[in-house]
């Protein structure tokens, strides 16, 4: 962030106004990544502290990824639980293809529907102190749920690589899981749970 760099004044900095989380620019764009590195290395020629700005700006898209969501299969289940089960095949294909997953901070893929079931109950009014969440840590559980959905979505979606926050927008605006997380978060706030327990369940601007 430029304001932070301005205040801290590191010896050499190349400010790149790219989506947060993508300091080298665009995934799959080797030419851009290489140019950013070369511009950074040019700072080594300076004879005093220097802050340069990379000329290209890339903004986050913040519009939902175009990604189909499985239709309801078992109407007796909370929508998010049914949905998460429906995405399991796509998640598994992603894991097979990549050989790695970000799911597993505190719960595994098998437990994602169960965790969503508890979040659903919280959102429906159950006391968070009475209904235990698998994995316990609300922030970590929400990371695992979001990673599960993200990995499934990137397996299902076609077309060019999504822009910054595009999958985030899809998750919170279009999936039942995203709505369930937000409802549980609001419920925890309403039940006066400690601030970090609920606030960091979702991006701060939501």
């Amino acid at each position, binding site marked *: 962030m430029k304001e932070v760099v301005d205040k801290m004044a590191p010896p050499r900095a190349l400010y790149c106004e790219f989506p947060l*989380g993508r300091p080298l620019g665009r995934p799959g764009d080797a030419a851009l990544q290489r140019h950013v*590195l070369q511009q950074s290395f040019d700072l080594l020629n300076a004879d005093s502290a220097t802050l340069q700005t990379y000329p290209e700006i890339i*903004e986050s898209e913040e519009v939902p990824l175009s990604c189909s969501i499985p239709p309801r299969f078992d109407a007796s289940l909370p929508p998010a639980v049914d949905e998460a089960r429906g995405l399991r095949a796509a998640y598994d294909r992603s894991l097979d293809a990549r050989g*790695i997953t970000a799911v597993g901070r505190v719960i595994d893929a098998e437990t994602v529907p169960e965790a969503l079931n508890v979040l659903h109950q919280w959102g429906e009014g159950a006391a968070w102190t009475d209904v235990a969440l698998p994995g316990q840590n609300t922030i*970590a559980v929400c990371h695992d749920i979001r990673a599960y959905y993200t990995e499934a979505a990137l397996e299902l979606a076609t077309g060019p690589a999504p822009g910054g926050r595009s999958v*985030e927008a899809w998750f919170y605006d279009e999936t039942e899981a995203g709505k369930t997380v937000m409802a549980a978060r609001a419920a925890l706030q309403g039940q006066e749970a400690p601030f970090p327990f609920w606030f960091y369940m979702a991006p701060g*601007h939501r």
Partner: protein
Amino acid sequence: MSIGGGDAAMRAFGAKQEVPIFDDPSFTPLSKPLSEARVAIVTSAALHRPDQDRFASADTGFRAFDRTDRDMVMGHWSPNFDHTGFQLDLNVVYPIDRLEELAADGVIGDVAPRHFAFAGNQPDTVSELRLDTGPACAQQLLADAVDVVVLTPV
């Protein structure tokens, strides 16, 4: 539904944050041509290999990777930035393949044998990182005869 853009909101938040101010930032001239320099990456994206300890929520430590490591996950605790770019192409955070290409082309001298990750979510004073784990990481970079470090913030 979001209220305004997430990146804009985070930048506005960051602009208000108190940060450590250094009266006399260290400035070290490069002592050799870049084409002879050994380059390492240090990122604050909380990357770790699956076999390494995950980053705890207030983790001030770091993880080291071998030059050949590619299978890593992002263990950052902040929900406030995009994780998918890294998932699609780790070079968007950890430009190890770009460094290998620049070394092969003779632009840089060499790629360091090890690279490092911290967690970007730190206490406001970053005291432990400044006084303990940061210097410890720097010692490891020096032990590997690294000349230049690319810092990638997340």
